């Protein structure tokens, strides 16, 4: 018993303070990955069955809806390409460098429950697919979080609503920078340390600022939904609704590091997909 106590305490401190056991943890995660896959199986199977037995009309309906959105997106993309080129030219004039392509890796969430008191998800891509610690995780609507632990075939990501997660953001409208801090699942994020007179309005869109070097610039994070000025507090209380659909997204994108010094004239826009 004493042995177990000492071993536990040693483990706990070495793990939390010095991250000494990252390789061990990664190895153990690889060992338990099959368990997680099995636990995830019933849900996946259900989903597969409901996919397989959808009737023809539903599929046709879905298909036409998707075709319509695809068309819309293509039109937007054309506009966006123009804007991006213009942006690059302007930056060229200013003499600042610009990162061009960001490659992404598509991963799927395992539908398993973890500790209900911390917001984490398990992804089905790991070291073998080039996932690394600290990698940004996005879904189709915005930033979801970042990878905190990588095993051979799986990885664990912490969501941006986790109370231990802070994300450097800026307001799209005026470039005001802030840090968005998680307050738990279902709760809005909080913009920390903004004074009462900061220029923030309800409805402002927040994007990643790229400060801190983990997240690429310009991905949507959320919108401001409420601003309060509590009496006697130094800072405003600003609530932000995350753009990402944290509860419903099944597929997520992992951003791979881009080739840093791409020549500015290279007109590649693509957001390549790797499978």
């Amino acid at each position, binding site marked *: 018993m004493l042995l*177990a106590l000492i071993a536990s305490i040693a483990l706990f401190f070495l793990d939390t303070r010095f991250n000494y056991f990252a390789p061990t943890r990664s190895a153990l995660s690889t060992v338990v990955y099959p*368990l997680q896959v099995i636990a995830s199986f019933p849900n996946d199977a259900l989903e597969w069955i409901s996919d397989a037995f959808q009737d023809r009309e539903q599929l046709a309906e879905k298909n036409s809806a998707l075709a319509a959105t695809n068309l819309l997106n293509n039109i937007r993309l054309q506009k966006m390409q123009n804007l991006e080129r213009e942006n690059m030219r302007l930056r060229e004039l200013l003499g600042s460098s610009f990162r061009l392509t960001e490659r992404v890796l598509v991963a799927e969430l395992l539908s398993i429950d973890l500790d209900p008191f911390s917001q984490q998800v398990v992804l089905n891509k790991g070291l073998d697919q080039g996932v690394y610690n600290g990698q940004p995780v996005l879904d189709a609507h915005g930033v979801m979080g970042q990878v905190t632990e990588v095993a051979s075939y799986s990885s664990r990501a912490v969501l941006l609503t986790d109370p231990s997660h802070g994300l450097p953001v800026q307001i799209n409208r005026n470039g005001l920078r802030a840090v968005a801090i998680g307050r738990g699942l279902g709760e809005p994020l909080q913009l920390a340390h903004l004074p009462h007179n900061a220029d923030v309005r309800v409805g402002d869109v927040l994007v990643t600022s790229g400060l801190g070097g983990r997240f690429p610039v310009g991905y949507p994070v959320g919108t401001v939904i409420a601003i309060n000025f509590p009496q006697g507090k130094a800072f405003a209380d600003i609530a932000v609704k995350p753009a990402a659909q944290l509860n419903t997204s099944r597929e997520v994108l992992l951003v791979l590091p881009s080739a840093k010094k791409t020549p500015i004239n290279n007109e590649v826009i693509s957001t390549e997909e790797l499978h």
Partner: protein
Amino acid sequence: MATIKTPQGGGIIIFTVIISMLLMMVPLADNLRFARPEWVLMTLIYWAMALPHRVGVGYAWFSGLLMDVLMGGSLGVEAFSYAFVIYLVLRFHLQLRQYPLWQQAVSIMTMVLLVNIPAVLMSSSHVSWYMWLSVITTTLLWPIAYAFLRAIRRTFNVS
């Protein structure tokens, strides 16, 4: 060796522990998640009570460590609490076996409460009263788990 019975059915014990780990991970509705009973702990308690020479503190410690990895907590928290509970069970297993089921369930409730204390002390996130829901469900489900595991032990003649 002085023992007459040779231990058998170790695979069954491991199998039940693995199944309980799966039960800990199977997705539940959001409002039910907090009420998830401590399946792994119940399984370990049963085996430690029924076969104290097979399932000991080391066994519990290792299962707890795996749970830490599965749940993504800090390494060592669950490992310690599981080991501690199984230590108590081993210490009192003769009394526990004599108790009627409801009294067993109450004893186990106190133990699960003990398990939650290190988690409370060491968790960085805020603690809410939801935390204690799992204690209640564990207590309520103990008689069922007990009957089920005993049936397994008898069927497969684990000793």
